[in-house]
């Protein structure tokens, strides 16, 4: 058995988390609240130590007065707690949404155009034929202008439906294996780091 307190705590909390398989219970709740609290606390602490404090204590007093403007805009978000001043909290949200939209419009189209251009294959290989047929079928499945009675749309949709199901199946299979790996990680921790049954 391990003699490290941290490993004991982690192992016991892992087993508490597994009790959720039996149903919602107080042991699971302890883990849930601890996890959320620790995650938020760690993120807030790291953000203050690595980012906010160096900006306030180092950069602003050394002449970077322009940083005061975003700081003030950011602080406006706390006005949402006042009944008459809540409207002020909309300004930082507006800045964030506007910035996000601009950023996405600036960078995202090039990536998507690359994907569209990459969907046109030379039909010189069987694989490329499969991709092209399933791509067109998938598009026709979501094509509603001509209605599903049109024979081309109907046939294409049928092919597209199977293509979509195959893709979802591949994703589901991959998800399942990924979840197994997550469980494997905790099981290995219990057997190796806590119980010392394997090396």
């Amino acid at each position: 058995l391990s003699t490290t307190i941290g490993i004991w705590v982690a192992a016991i909390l892992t087993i508490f988390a597994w009790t959720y398989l039996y149903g919602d219970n107080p042991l699971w709740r302890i883990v849930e609240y601890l996890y959320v609290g620790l995650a938020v606390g760690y993120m807030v602490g790291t953000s203050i130590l690595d980012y906010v404090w160096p900006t306030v204590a180092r950069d602003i007093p050394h002449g970077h007065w322009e940083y005061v403007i975003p700081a003030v805009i950011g602080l406006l978000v706390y006005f949402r707690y006042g009944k008459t001043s809540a409207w002020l909290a909309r300004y930082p949200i507006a800045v964030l949404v506007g910035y996000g939209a601009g950023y996405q419009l600036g960078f995202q189209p090039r990536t998507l155009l690359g994907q569209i251009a990459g969907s046109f294959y030379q039909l010189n290989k069987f694989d490329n034929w499969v991709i092209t047929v399933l791509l067109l079928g998938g598009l026709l499945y979501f094509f509603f202008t001509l209605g599903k009675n049109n024979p081309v749309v109907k046939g294409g949709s049928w092919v597209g439906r199977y293509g979509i199901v195959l893709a979802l199946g591949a994703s589901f299979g991959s998800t399942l294996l990924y979840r197994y790996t997550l469980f494997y990680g905790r099981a290995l921790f219990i057997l190796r780091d806590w119980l010392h049954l394997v090396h």
Partner: protein
Amino acid sequence: VNGMTKLAHIRNGWIYVLIFAVVFFSILVPIALPIPVQPQTRKAFDKVNALPAGSNAFIWMSYGSGATAELNPMFDALVTHLMERGVNIVIASRTVDALQVAWKEMQTEVAAFPDYAKGYGSKWVVLGWNPSPDVAIRQATSNIATAYNNVDFTGKALTDMPLIKQAPALTAQSYALGIVMDDTDGYLQWINRVGQPENLPPLVGAIQMEVPVVSPYVNTGQIGAIIPGANGAAQYEVLLHHPGGALRTQNTASLAALLVVVLLILGNLGFVAERRQKAA
């Protein structure tokens, strides 16, 4: 037929017991299954293998602590390979917990490489945390120290570090390779903000679940190469002749896949039997 219909309604509890048994058994009784190397992992390996000594690689950790079982062995294999090649390593993070993960893993991995064990700041650096990581990675293309508020993971000034002085911006001129260790859409953020503007398509270490979504970007060249999930990491370890954590996960993955196939067959047999019973 009556007995067969029960197969369609196996209680969840029994399935959990089976999963526990399979996973614990696979760890306690390892089976050395052959791992065939796929072309995509070979391509990723060759990319790292082609890096000249003294060049720089930038690793972006885009995963939470939940994905460590799958991505830590991959990270370990990649940094081991980079250090074997004599490549300098700069690490930034998209998630606050991965920063801690990177630091902890590097402490272990550098122990086998004296140059790196003594060379923090000149051979490798873990950057500090920026609460807007997607914005920071774009800003890093102009100036890494500014993007990460001039602090590394330990709070030291980045501008004092020889590696950051030598490669101050995340550009193709300064960095021979960008690597994204990813469990969500970090690869997409990299393509948008660094890959296409700076002509630095990443090598993506992806979790298994993400592989079908990431693969189209490999086909278009927007991603340079991919290591697909824990299986890809195991293949990488085979190529590196450095067996590690990833090879071990493949026991579990193979037995788990077998269990799923058995449960699928049993469930479907039960479903067919139930339908026949209703029809009769």
